[in-house]
């Protein structure tokens, strides 16, 4: 099996590089709300998270070059995405009961 042969020094370098990348990105999450895209913090944060996740999956989890498993991962993610599109994008964004409804217009004043 390919995985049994290992170039220790090479792979170790990759690990450290990725760690530095992840640490940097973490730092970016902290300065972002004060630096850029301040009007869409949510979006910015999620984009950063996706980049981080991508790094982890590709390098730490060795997904690079795994055709079959990559396809499966995409499939699962596509499914989650569709759930989001339908439930959030279609159903909730057309929520019909705004003002009338108890759960959206909280009865208790602060």
């Amino acid at each position: 099996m390919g995985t049994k042969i290992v170039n220790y020094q090479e792979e170790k370098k990759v690990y450290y590089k990725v760690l530095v990348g992840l640490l940097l990105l973490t730092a970016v999450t902290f300065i972002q709300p004060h630096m850029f895209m301040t009007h869409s913090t949510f979006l910015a944060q999620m984009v950063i998270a996706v980049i981080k996740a991508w790094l982890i999956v590709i390098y730490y989890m060795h997904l690079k070059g795994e055709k079959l498993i990559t396809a499966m991962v995409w499939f699962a993610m596509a499914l989650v995405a569709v759930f989001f599109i339908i439930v959030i994008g279609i159903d909730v964004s057309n929520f019909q009961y705004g003002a009338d409804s108890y759960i959206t217009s909280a009865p208790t004043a602060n």
Partner: protein
Amino acid sequence: MSHEYIPEIATERNGTEHEVQGWQDDFYGGKLGFWLFMLTEVMMFGAMFLALAYYNTLHQQDFLDASASLNRLLGGTNTVILLVSALTMGLGLLKMRAGDVKGAKLMIWATIILAAIFLVIKGFEWSAEYHHGIFLMHDQLLADSPLPFGQKLFFGMYFTMTGLHGFHIIIGIGLMLWLLKRINAGKVSQDHHILYWNIALYWDIVHLIWVFVFPYYYMIGAGGATGGH
């Protein structure tokens, strides 16, 4: 048990021989299986994020307010801790594959300690929230408290999701201890490291979940209440 693996041969009509894949000693099969398991984790947390996003769209402002009140410093520290622990786990696996059993064990211990620190910090956070009356079954989250719905839902999901994540960490510690035992027993070695491989994958997914949990809870309100969507 006659589980020793002797590859079997299937012969084509023209005499060509093909090795039959048995279930024993199937490294790739083991890996594939574990990835499939991780997909179920993705769906599980995906569904929780779905619930979270559902209420987020209904109560945007409340979510920002609630997020702003979380302790970003502790959360950030925990993020870094998990980052480093993912590294130690990965390095340990590398060492194992390179034949350095002792180094690998050291790295696993390092990971376990980091995981424990993570839990301790989490405990501090939770107890601080507890003192503010924001906790499971506690006054701020009850039906008749004046906390706006959006915040109640935010915190409800917060405790559920970080709690479940913490539970995964605890399981992870257990798995690593078990791994150490297997290594000592000689069942996991340079050539048979599927167990280690999969536990490392598990640890990565635990980390991966945090990569999303952290910004969604701690960061979205960081720009003050204006940092909209």
